[in-house]
């Protein structure tokens, strides 16, 4: 029964056009970056210079993997939170706005079950969107750049050079870890959508919370407080490119994100449970 209901939620979610905005804009954004990098004079020259100044043969590392990886950073910072919170903010608030929530709840399904189903559907969307980000980036880059080694920046100020096989492994791992960021931000927007508010308000509140954290995290004098900001843990996917892989840090952030996700789901669930649904 759970799977049947989940299928119905997924059907509803993927039946909306707005669900595909993220996929579409990722593709457009990545294609624009790839075309600029391929045909623009400046960007490729800059990377060439950087690699060759360090003795590496640029043509071995200006590859589809490298291009897909450097595109990932700005998109994962800005666009990914936008699209997952758009969908997360819609999941319940849109039903309330459209007036379909009362009709759904008049069926023999508990509020908590409905809420959980929607959260699972939203999480699956966020997971697929994060993986699609990587695959579409790689596909766009593969149109103009050959397959080969990976040249990736790993904070702070260190870059990593990897052969194609290892590079692909780390690229995939980065996206798997990135999907946790997507699920968390979706969960945050979903929590707001459980309150009595419009979908757009839920989306904006979630984004405001994420960006406020990002601003605080990036103030140099606040570096001691970094572990207290959500975005510090959301950025754990970047750790994948650090040598040696700091598993302990990844596991720490992962543990705290479990706490954050539980909080978002429980607060949202409680608000939805005690809420008086009138329309």
């Amino acid at each position, binding site marked *: 029964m759970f799977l049947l209901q989940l299928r119905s939620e997924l059907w509803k979610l993927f039946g909306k056009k707005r669900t595909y905005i993220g996929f579409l804009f990722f593709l457009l954004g990545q294609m624009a970056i790839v075309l600029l990098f391929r045909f623009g004079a400046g960007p490729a020259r800059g990377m060439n210079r950087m690699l060759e100044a360090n003795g590496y043969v640029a043509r071995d590392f200006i590859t589809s993997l490298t291009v897909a990886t450097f595109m990932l950073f700005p998109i994962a910072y800005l666009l990914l939170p936008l699209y997952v919170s758009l969908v997360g903010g819609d999941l319940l608030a849109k039903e309330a706005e459209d007036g379909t929530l009362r009709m759904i709840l008049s069926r023999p399904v508990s509020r908590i079950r409905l809420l959980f189903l929607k959260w699972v559907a939203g999480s699956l969307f966020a997971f697929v969107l994060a993986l699609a980000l990587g695959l579409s980036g790689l596909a766009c880059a593969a149109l103009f750049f050959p397959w080969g080694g990976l040249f990736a920046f790993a904070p702070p100020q260190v870059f990593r050079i990897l052969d194609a096989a290892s590079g692909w492994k780390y690229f995939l791992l980065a996206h798997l870890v990135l999907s946790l960021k997507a699920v968390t931000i979706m969960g945050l927007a979903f929590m707001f959508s459980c309150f009595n508010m419009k979908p757009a308000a839920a989306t904006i509140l979630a984004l405001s919370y994420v960006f406020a954290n990002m601003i605080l995290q990036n103030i140099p004098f606040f570096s001691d407080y970094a572990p207290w900001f959500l975005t510090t843990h959301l950025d754990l996917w970047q750790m994948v490119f650090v040598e040696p892989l700091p598993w*302990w840090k990844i596991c720490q952030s992962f*543990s705290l994100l479990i706490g954050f996700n*539980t909080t978002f789901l429980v607060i949202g*669930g409680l608000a939805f449970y005690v809420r008086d649904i009138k329309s």
Partner: protein
Amino acid sequence: MIPHHRKAVATAALILAVGWGVAFAGYALAGWTNHTLEKFDAYVQSVDFARLSGDARIRAIDKLVRELRALPAEERRQGWVESPWSRWFATMNDQEKSHFAQLLAPDGLDRLAAAFGQLPDERRRLLVRNSVLRLNDIHTKLNPDAAPATGGLESWQMPADLQQKLITDGIKPHYEELTGEARVDFELFLEELQQMMGTTEVLRGRPFRQ
């Protein structure tokens, strides 16, 4: 508050407490598995290498290198400069020394050597100089009372003729000539060089600053 709402709030509080309990337990556990220089030193001190025999010695060497490699870059270099394994080294046979040196060879040594070989002389000179200065800086900080460096690798003052040899002939010929402890010392230099070549600082041609 309606009674069933009160129950819902209590259940939510309980779930939150359990959720954060699990989260903090995971956080603490992950922190505990963190590799630190203290843990590394403690491991080296805990093993009486001279008393081990056969495969146990090889396993101990393997674990030593694994622990060293798991340290963050900064601590790894510090641990390497400190070389707390000198006591072990004194009782290793040639085969074990060679195994130890082989394990410590930087990943992608061939790629590093090739990349270094592609660089112009001036850039190679800067990289060698910066790597030596940085190691010397770590060494001096760890041994503030030590006598001034006299020119051996052990004090991280690489002789000028060796520096010149590396600049003109590249890394590989010298590396292949070395054995035992000298190779282990040189591998630390290679690790530092690799680190330097992986930063944008040197790309901009900046000299080393203490």
